[in-house]
């Protein structure tokens, strides 16, 4: 069974630009979660999608947005990038709705210059 995949692995942008990060969940998983992890810190919850709907959103500004496609893959968009957006962005998927074991992808390292 293939794991959660994310692309790109690394992304370098400049302040004010827009970034798009992609995630493909494990086959059969309908829930996708996005987390931000700044260097050496914990997992900050960003977004949760299930069956194409946004179920929950963390305490992030509106310039962080996303969507889930009919094949359950997901996209995270960050507009008007700021230096403090530099972090590892992790995507996870789960078989069950919300509270089941989460399987994480390798992450996208976003650097904002």
């Amino acid at each position, binding site marked *: 069974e293939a794991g959660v995949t994310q692309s790109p692995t690394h992304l370098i942008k400049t302040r004010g630009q827009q970034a798009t990060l992609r995630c493909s969940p494990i086959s059969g998983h309908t829930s996708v*979660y996005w*987390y931000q992890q700044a260097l*050496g*810190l*914990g*997992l900050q*919850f960003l977004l*949760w999608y*299930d069956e194409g*709907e*946004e*179920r*929950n*959103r963390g305490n992030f500004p509106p310039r962080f947005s996303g969507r889930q496609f009919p094949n359950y893959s997901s996209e995270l968009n960050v507009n008007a990038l700021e230096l403090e957006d530099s972090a590892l962005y*992790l995507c*996870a998927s789960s078989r069950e*709705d*919300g*509270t089941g*074991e*989460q*399987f*994480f*992808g*390798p*992450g996208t390292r976003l650097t904002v210059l």
Partner: protein
Amino acid sequence: GQQVMQIPQYQHVQEGEDFTTYCNSSTTLSNIQWYKQRPGGHPVFLIQLVKSGEVKKQKRLTFQFGEAKKNSSLHITATQTTDVGTYFCAGPYRGGSGSRLTFGEGTQLTVNP
């Protein structure tokens, strides 16, 4: 506010010493999960505890769920350098249009050989 508190934030031990991290919830949990993130890696599921007072062991790792199902601990006996990483607990909490896992801040373990 933070619903899952985890302590300590950092722990440095000599190889062979024991290590314990504690997780406390503001509310009763239906279950609690533990994850490990190696340096440079992504979180990986270790175990889920469901029953009040439950104790589970994985080799040198012992996981406990409190009687009131509001706290949990992970104890590692005789740490090895392979135990290095950040350990996260996670519990389901109501958020948005469903319940989802909320992660603690994590305990970063370093092991000196």
